[in-house]
């Protein structure tokens, strides 16, 4: 009987766990190890972060669901992989520190036949001095708890505006190498929408501070859309939204540090700038969670399995080459480790072979390089793909072909909320195909028949429907498996 261990219970890990449980008979064991006791629908943290939705609407406890489904749940943080076992046994295992264990307590072991690394990222606030809610001076919406704290800060700022004070609210990216610009983009529009709804918009200056070369890049190198007889860049689409809402934007920035009420940043021309703020939500850069790996003799093999960023290498081409030679073929198809046949990585945990946006350096060497997003829809598809591959190998034997969902040819749909409300809400709905631009096939890198963007109430309805649909799916309620990722 096979045992599958899944590290992480985010979108990729939870999708893999639930689909594996559906595919495999109960005799096969599925174990999820996650430091968090709850599942979080992260896209709706945006609404929690402005006080428009309670925390309880975006999370649910994992233990009761997994008990119902027959999935073993270990709340803890994975620390090391032993893919060849140890001197005593060749059975591979994972070491993890259980939640609540004493700092000097020895890690627990969980053996496996197949391993899915879906840990998601480490939120690397430490990369920028003064960044983040843990001892820093900014807030975040990356977790439900962070979003609650962001809401408190935002509403405190609103209170000060009600007393007549003017406030500067800054939303954006806390480092030159950040990803997830979409989250900051959504948050800044929700902040602006709430300021208007609460009647204090005239007291606020709202600024979007980003490492994108232009707004609308989203770490995807931007995209092109048909509009009014032209093919326009997404920069025009995004700038239009900022201009309409009176939000200032600063691009090509690298935040060097945050002090109370002051953001210190540089831009690609090495201009050293300061931006005062009363409230700031800055997304941190991501890196791998710091898993170590060891061979049977106990020698460390971390660099064989993981890229320097801490993310796991999979079936991608990691050869260093100039931007002009980057190709969609560099991107992974099966998400399996090239070193061990029974290890897969899905979601943010896999190491991208390179960026999609062109990385740029200032004359003094400051790197401004938005990383490619691989969350949400793409993370779910990766989770499904590795689940199907593992299920086939368990049921049909080690020669069963792996499933493929090439990252480069995935499409993506992004519904970026620009304010909630059944009749007054708004969202930017963006579809694109493919995720990785292919200039050999498409004049503008992507298929314009499948790449589109529009703003309106319909987008808000869609985001609201998706919120409930994906929570229904994650809770494994009737016919959950029919809902696509």
């Amino acid at each position, binding site marked *: 009987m096979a045992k599958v261990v899944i590290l992480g219970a985010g979108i990729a890990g939870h999708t893999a766990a639930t689909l594996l449980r559906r595919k495999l008979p109960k005799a096969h064991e599925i174990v999820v190890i996650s430091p968090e006791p709850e599942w979080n629908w992260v896209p709706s943290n945006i609404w929690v972060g402005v006080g428009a939705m309670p925390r309880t609407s975006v999370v649910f406890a994992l233990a009761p669901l997994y008990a119902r489904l027959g999935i073993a749940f270990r709340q803890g943080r994975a620390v090391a992989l032993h893919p060849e076992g140890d001197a005593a046994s060749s059975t591979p295992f994972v070491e993890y520190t259980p939640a609540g264990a004493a700092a000097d307590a020895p890690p627990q072991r969980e053996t496996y036949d197949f391993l899915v690394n879906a840990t998601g990222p480490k939120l690397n606030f430490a990369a920028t001095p003064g960044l983040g809610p843990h001892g820093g001076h900014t807030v975040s919406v990356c977790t439900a708890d962070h979003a609650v704290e962001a809401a408190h800060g935002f509403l405190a700022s609103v209170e000060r505006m009600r007393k007549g004070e003017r406030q500067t609210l800054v939303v954006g990216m806390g480092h030159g190498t950040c990803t997830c610009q979409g989250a900051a983009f959504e948050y800044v529009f929700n902040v602006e929408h709430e300021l208007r709804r609460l009647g204090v918009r005239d007291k606020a200056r709202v600024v979007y501070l980003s490492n994108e070369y232009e707004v609308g890049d989203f770490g995807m190198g931007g995209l092109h859309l048909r509009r009014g007889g032209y093919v326009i860049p997404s920069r*025009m689409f995004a*700038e*239009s939204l*900022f*201009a*309409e809402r*009176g939000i*200032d*934007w600063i691009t090509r920035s690298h935040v060097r540090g945050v002090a109370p009420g002051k953001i210190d940043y540089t831009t690609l021309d090495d201009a050293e700038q300061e931006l005062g703020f009363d409230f700031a939500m800055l997304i941190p850069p991501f890196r791998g969670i710091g898993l170590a790996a060891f061979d049977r003799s106990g020698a460390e093999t971390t660099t064989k399995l993981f890229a320097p960023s801490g993310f796991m290498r999979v079936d991608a081409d990691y050869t260093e080459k100039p931007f002009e030679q980057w190709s969609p073929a560099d991107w992974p*198809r*099966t998400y399996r480790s090239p070193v061990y046949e029974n290890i897969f990585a899905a979601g943010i945990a896999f190491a991208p072979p390179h960026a999609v946006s062109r990385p740029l350096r200032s004359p003094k060497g400051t790197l401004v390089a938005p990383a490619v997003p691989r969350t949400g829809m793409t993370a779910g*598809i990766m989770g*499904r*793909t590795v689940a*199907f591959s593992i299920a*086939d190998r368990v049921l049909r034997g080690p020669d*069963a*072909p*792996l*499933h*493929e*969902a090439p990252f480069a*040819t*995935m*499409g993506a*749909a992004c519904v970026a909320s620009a304010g909630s409300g059944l*009749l*007054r809400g*708004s969202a930017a*709905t963006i*579809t694109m*195909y*493919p995720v990785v631009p292919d200039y050999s096939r498409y004049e503008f890198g992507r298929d314009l028949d*499948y790449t*589109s963007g*529009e*703003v*309106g*109430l*319909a*987008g808000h*309805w*869609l985001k609201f429907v998706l919120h409930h649909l994906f929570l229904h799916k994650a809770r494994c309620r009737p016919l959950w498996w029919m809902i*696509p*990722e």
Partner: protein
Amino acid sequence: MTPADISRPISFASVPTRGTRFMRTFVPYQLMRFTLINVKMLRLLARAHHTKPRGSQ
């Protein structure tokens, strides 16, 4: 926009007309857009979101 905005990036961006803004919250039109966006996403799913065994067509 005011003369004070001229040096800000905002003054170089396109902005929606009053008619466009009205249509963004005009419920009958948005119901139609909601349907069309869903069709668009289903087409995208049909084209780009297959998970299939290696070597299969």
